[in-house]
């Protein structure tokens, strides 16, 4: 698709697949604008979970009986499906609890391979806490130092010159979000990973906000590792994907110990299974993998490029609506200079984000208010918190209009002060 117009798929029709969207809250129809926190689930995903528990539920890998064989096949099929979804091979896919666990796994295994006194971990100022805190913990342990590619506050974009300078200074690990959950910024991950490769750094992409919203192909991006969460891409909670490039993944030491991840155990010591099993200790979340499989099927049926365009359309409308109110501050890329994903943070003049969100809720609108797990970025932007609206393919222009009405009412209430 070359055009910047959304293909005429019908958000109104897709909404019908999402039972949770058909409810009222506080006596008004729900307008769910919090998909960046977690997406709603289509009926096909919910049903895949029920069907699994009603028919095939068993522990995997170690079992020979019929149910166990079915459960194992379903689990490994889900792995193959995830590989296809991200343009990878099945043995490059590890199932995790979510993006956070993925980063923790990487921090704790890569530290033994590439970190040490004075080594540099390069992040960006717009990372989610889950892509900051694990690195702080291993930096403290290993003596590595963390540097941050700055965010230009006016545009919400990374300072690319500064990025190049930082790469030139030597980097062991580079970890960066694909899309900022606070700013909506879409980072140039392809160039960033190329620079990382030139610098000899291991590159990690946090695709928590992108995996369910656009095509994410690991070979195209050129990253060594990638993490995401199922629950933000129409899948169930408690499951996520870690991609690791074939030999790099194979070479990592294990992280958690237990069943599945071993080859041979004696009382004296143990040897490890091959990747990806080496990284999946204990009974995996089979249900989660199966639900995620159904979610990936659903997303591909809708069309990931179509989702991206629909998100963009709504966010542009929302930014237009919000900026029509005097004194409203909108964060992230605002003009054509940078792509703005379906997430928009804003601040109403003199009104705290939590008041905005509580009042919007009374109008049936689910927004998020707070630091969005990015406290240091809030500080840099000079706000205690922002309100955030995030869009998905099941949102409509009516939802944007509902947001406009709500903001108008809130502004009016506070204008009496």
């Amino acid at each position, binding site marked *: 698709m070359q055009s910047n117009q959304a293909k005429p798929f019908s958000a109104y029709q897709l909404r019908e697949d999402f039972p949770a969207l058909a409810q009222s809250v*506080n006596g008004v129809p729900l307008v769910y604008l919090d998909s960046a926190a977690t997406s709603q689930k289509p009926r096909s995903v919910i049903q895949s979970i029920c069907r699994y528990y009603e028919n095939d539920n068993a522990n995997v890998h170690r079992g020979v009986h019929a149910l166990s064989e079915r459960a194992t096949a379903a689990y490994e099929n889900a792995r193959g499906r995830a590989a296809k979804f991200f343009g990878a091979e099945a043995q490059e896919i590890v199932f995790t609890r979510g993006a956070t666990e993925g980063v923790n796994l990487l921090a704790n295994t890569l530290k033994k391979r590439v970190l040490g006194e004075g080594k540099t971990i390069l992040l960006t100022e717009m990372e989610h806490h889950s892509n900051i805190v694990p690195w702080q913990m291993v930096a403290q342990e290993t003596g590595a130092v963390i540097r941050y590619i700055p965010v230009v506050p006016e545009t919400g974009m990374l300072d690319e010159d500064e990025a190049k300078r930082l790469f030139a200074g030597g980097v062991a690990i580079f970890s960066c979000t694909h899309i900022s959950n606070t700013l909506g910024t879409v980072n140039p991950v392809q160039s960033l990973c190329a620079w990382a490769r030139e610098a000899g750094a291991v590159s990690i992409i946090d695709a928590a906000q992108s995996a369910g919203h656009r095509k994410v192909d690991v070979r195209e991006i050129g990253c060594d590792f990638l993490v995401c969460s199922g629950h933000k891409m129409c899948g169930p909670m408690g499951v996520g994907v870690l991609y690791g490039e074939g030999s790099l993944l194979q070479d990592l030491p294990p992280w958690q110990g237990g069943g599945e991840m071993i080859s041979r155990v004696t009382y004296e010591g143990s040897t490890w299974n091959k990747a990806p099993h080496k990284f999946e200790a204990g009974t995996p979340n089979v249900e989660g993998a199966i639900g995620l499989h159904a979610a990936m099927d659903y997303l591909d049926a809708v069309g990931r490029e179509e989702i991206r365009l629909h998100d963009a359309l709504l966010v542009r409308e929302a930014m237009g609506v919000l900026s029509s109110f005097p004194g409203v501050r909108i964060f992230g890329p605002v003009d054509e200079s940078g792509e703005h994903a379906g997430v928009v943070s804003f601040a109403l003049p003199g009104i*705290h984000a*939590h*008041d905005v969100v509580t009042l919007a809720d009374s109008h049936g609108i689910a927004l998020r208010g707070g*630091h969005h797990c990015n406290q240091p970025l809030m500080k840099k932007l000079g706000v205690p*918190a922002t309100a955030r609206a995030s869009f998905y393919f099941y949102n409509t222009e009516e939802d944007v209009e509902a947001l406009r009405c709500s903001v108008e009412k809130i502004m009016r209430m506070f204008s009496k*002060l």
Partner: protein
Amino acid sequence: MSTEELYQEIIMDHAGKPRNFVEMAEPDAKVEAENPMCGDELTLFLRASADGLRIEKTQFTGQACAICTASASLLTTKIKSLPIGEAESLSQAFQEMLKIPAEESAEGSAERLGNLQVLEGVRKFPMRMKCATLAWHALDHAVVQLREKGASEKLTFSDG
């Protein structure tokens, strides 16, 4: 109660024009309290009476949401010149009001709470509870300071 009722005039009034909203020089107690989860930050200042038995003056500063600001502002007006012990029990009564339905609460607490009852509606919004109680948590600590003639404190109230 609807949310817009929660944001009723008395709260909007205090949030928009918070009373005693000014830093205090040389306070007898000073507590900085923050809730990093939502970004509310305030500093509570107390001055004790000469005999040390009463709260003579209360002031606060900070940056917070309407609920938190109004609650702090109301606090400063209510505990003015109260005996220390009564300020403490008022704080307790207030915090209880946010947990227990009115009809179950101790007799007489309604009268004691007076216009603090406008904040009762927060009970329906568990996520906003900390906004309403932040100033009162600070007060609890400030009172201990008064008693122990302690130094100032910086507190973080996190989720959980």
